[in-house]
């Protein structure tokens, strides 16, 4: 994406610059996290990539297509912050339904039951979302996105509402699924350790106006298991990212 800008008209009729001058290239097959304080336009960025919103200036291409064309070709899998499951469908029904819409562009259904079993939902295939815990619901949402075999996975703080233990277990499962497919991932998060643990590259953003202040490469070996969290290298990256975020935040304060 190049020189992207997005405006929102506010209640007082003044345009709020939600995103300004965003230049970002994401290599196919990499795991990129976007981190930054609230209100820096992380979610807006995801909606621009997936074609839910249009940029007011600049250009975004996804594998050579416009975002709308890419969505039309089912290039995206999206995991929102809330699991967004349909309460009247079973776990299996929920992960199957995206294959029934826009059928022309469907990339074929992998063995969804096996995928669900892999993330520990084997005994819950026919349960309704109301019978699941928060972590199980979010796992269902992740399988729903992965099951589409997308080129690009967009995750908007998918673990934000979960407790720490569940969060770490789900990070592990997310990495395992990703190692198998190697789709491009754009992962929005608030959490520094989550960003370091998962990503090849962390994009740091600052608010008012939403912009990119830093891009940090995370050069840790994969696969990254639980143990890596306690290694000194991991810690060094966390510190670096924390510094970068502090800079981003103080910039924002000056600008406002």
């Amino acid at each position, binding site marked *: 994406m190049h020189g992207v800008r997005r405006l929102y008209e506010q209640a007082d009729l003044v345009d709020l610059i939600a995103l300004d001058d965003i230049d970002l290239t994401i290599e196919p097959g990499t795991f990129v996290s976007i981190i930054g304080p609230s209100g820096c336009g992380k979610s807006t960025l995801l*909606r621009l990539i*997936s*074609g*839910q919103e249009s940029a007011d200036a600049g250009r975004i291409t996804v594998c050579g297509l416009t975002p709308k064309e890419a*969505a*039309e070709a*089912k290039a*995206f*899998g*999206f995991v*929102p*912050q*809330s699991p*967004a*499951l*349909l*309460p*009247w469908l079973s776990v299996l029904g929920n992960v199957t*339904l*995206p294959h*029934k*819409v*826009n059928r022309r*562009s469907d990339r074929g259904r992998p063995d969804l039951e096996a995928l669900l079993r*892999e*993330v*520990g939902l084997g005994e819950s295939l026919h349960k*309704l979302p*109301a019978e699941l815990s928060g972590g199980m619901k979010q796992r269902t*949402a992740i399988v*729903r996105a992965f099951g*589409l075999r997308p080129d690009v996975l*967009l995750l908007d703080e998918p673990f934000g509402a979960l407790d720490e233990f569940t969060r770490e277990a789900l990070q592990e499962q997310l990495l*395992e699924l990703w190692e198998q497919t190697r789709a491009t991932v754009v992962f929005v998060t608030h959490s520094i350790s989550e960003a370091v643990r998962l990503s090849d590259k962390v994009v740091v953003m600052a608010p008012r106006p939403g912009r990119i202040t830093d891009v940090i490469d995370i050069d840790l070996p994969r696969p990254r298991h639980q143990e890596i969290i306690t290694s000194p290298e991991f810690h060094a990256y966390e510190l670096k990212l924390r510094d970068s975020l502090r800079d981003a935040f103080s910039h924002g304060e000056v600008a406002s």
Partner: protein
Amino acid sequence: MSLQPGAPAGTQPAPPRRTHLLVPTPEQLAARRLRRRTRLLRPAYWLPFVLLLVVLAIGWGIGARQMPYLFVPLGEIAGVLSEDPAYFLQNTLVTLGEALVGLGIGFVAAFALAVVVSEVAVVRRAVMPFAVVLSVTPLVAIAPLLVVALGFGMAPKVVLTALVCFFPILINVATGLRAVPGPVLEVYRTVAASRLEVLRYLRVPASLPYVFASLRIVFPLSMIGAVVAELAAAGSADGLGSVIQVASSQNRLATVWAAIFVLAALGSLLFWFVTLAERRVLHWHQP
């Protein structure tokens, strides 16, 4: 790959020996089932209701003695009912038929318009203000006009019932079709689901709780519509409303009350039916 730590990859983990469920023995299970099934037989459940029923019956008896032009003894009412049950049954079926046909027509029309309204903003802005006003207007008041216009047959009753049911259904379903949460819509829009697909797979199922909420309102309303239309078409046709009209003009109070009791029973039956259907269809829904 597997959740169980230590389980070798690729093999199914052995079933865990300890679970968080305590399964009762067959004898305990049978006892629990019996307890659950006979719950309604315990006095704590039925006694309060029966007591109030007795009080009301006694009150009715006193009322019948004090105000003989309003109340009649319950025995007389029962006598009328048992004397000619076929007469009441036949008139009940007529009223029920009018109510259900009217409700059916009203439902189909209201649902169709609700879909249009929820999909097309221009139509929504035009229609919804009228719908809100008309849903709080006592439409039964046009019954005499309908009788004049459509005659003494079934037509005015069905039309009035359909009209009375139409607007509550329209408002509820139009709300329900728009009750799909934003994140859900976003998930399905990122895979470019068409409007028709969103309607079929997301909006219509999401509206079902609202559909049943409207049915709870509209089943009793349909009875009101049919009976009022019968009252307005005095003495001309069958139906419990006509029975009431004719009998009260001839001062046969017991027959009037008998018809009212039958209407109450019929209304309860319909309500029970809606509740039953709701439990079946909306087992996933937690209000």
